[in-house]
């Protein structure tokens, strides 16, 4: 069942989303060569708690950390570690969820560490723009497939591929709610969008094949060909005036 949110609930989601966006702003200044993903996790955890929110991912289905840090070929769900220090030329995808007064905000960004290759920068830029291509279709009366198709078309026209094993989702009182929001599919298909629906649109874009594998830690998802992957996500509410990003400052 898809949960339609009231204005009161959406306001709480804006607050949760603001905390997530501010956490990204804070972290963006610390992402430099030498910093470990565990340090990033600690900073985010402290910041979220200081803002009277809780980390949505911590202990979610047993996940052991507060945020996800996925480096280079890691697609999503990378577990922060003291032994993973970022190096110049790396790209790191960070996924953050914060729960404020019972409602979640969920977003992800991919950052460049130091100077990166032009191909890696293009991957990050295309991933970000594909989110906005998809979001532009999040209007009442359209269908989930319209979002999915817009993301896929943009990504593939730029020579990259969209991950199919993982999808976006509804978000609200639960971190993951119905419906699923894939990044590939046919326009005009799927659930019809209505005002008050809150969804997390999250393109995961690979430089090579869209096939992925999960590492033995049970969480970290990596590209099957070990090529780079980028991630961009925001929680969005569908309104008659157009989509509104909830995870913004």
């Amino acid at each position, binding site marked *: *069942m*898809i*949960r*339609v*949110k*009231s*204005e*009161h*609930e959406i306001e709480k989601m804006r607050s949760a989303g603001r905390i997530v966006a501010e956490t990204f702003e804070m972290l963006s200044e610390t992402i430099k060569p030498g910093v470990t993903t565990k340090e990033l996790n600690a900073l985010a955890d402290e910041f979220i708690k200081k803002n009277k929110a809780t980390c949505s991912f911590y202990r979610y289905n047993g996940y052991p950390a507060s945020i996800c840090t996925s480096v280079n070929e890691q697609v999503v769900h990378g577990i922060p570690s003291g032994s993973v220090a970022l190096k110049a030329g790396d790209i790191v995808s960070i996924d953050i969820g914060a729960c404020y007064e019972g409602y979640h905000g969920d977003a992800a960004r991919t950052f460049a560490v130091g100077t990166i290759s032009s191909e890696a920068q293009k991957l990050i830029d295309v991933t970000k723009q594909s989110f906005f291509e998809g979001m532009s279709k999040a209007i*009442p*009366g359209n269908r989930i497939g319209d979002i999915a198709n817009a993301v896929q078309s943009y990504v593939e026209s730029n020579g990259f591929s969209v991950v199919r094993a993982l999808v976006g989702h509804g978000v*609200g*009182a639960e971190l993951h709610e119905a419906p699923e929001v894939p990044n590939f599919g046919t326009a005009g298909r799927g*659930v019809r969008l*209505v*005002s*008050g*629906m809150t969804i997390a649109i999250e393109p995961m874009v690979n430089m090579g094949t869209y096939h992925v594998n999960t590492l033995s830690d049970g969480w970290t998802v990596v590209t099957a060909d070990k090529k780079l992957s980028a991630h961009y996500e925001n929680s969005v509410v569908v*309104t*008659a005036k157009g989509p509104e990003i909830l995870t913004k400052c």
Partner: protein
Amino acid sequence: MELNAGEIVCSKAGRDKGRYFVVMETEGSEFVFVCDGKLRKVDKPKKKKIKHLARTGFLAEEIKEKLSLGEKVTNQDLRKMLGKMNSDANA
């Protein structure tokens, strides 16, 4: 088809055809009471046959919560939740 309190449904028959409502209460396996805060107010819910309603797959979580806790649901709550859907449908 079984409907539960808090579910958003669309009327398939009657003068309210095409409007969205929230299920407030169920009665047996054939009837439910629905309101939208405008045409059908909280103090006078409309008894409708389930077969005259279409399931939308959407749930008004906040209203379901209030109903299960026995808290008062206002017409304003319903209008805020459905107003946008009903105006989308008429757009």
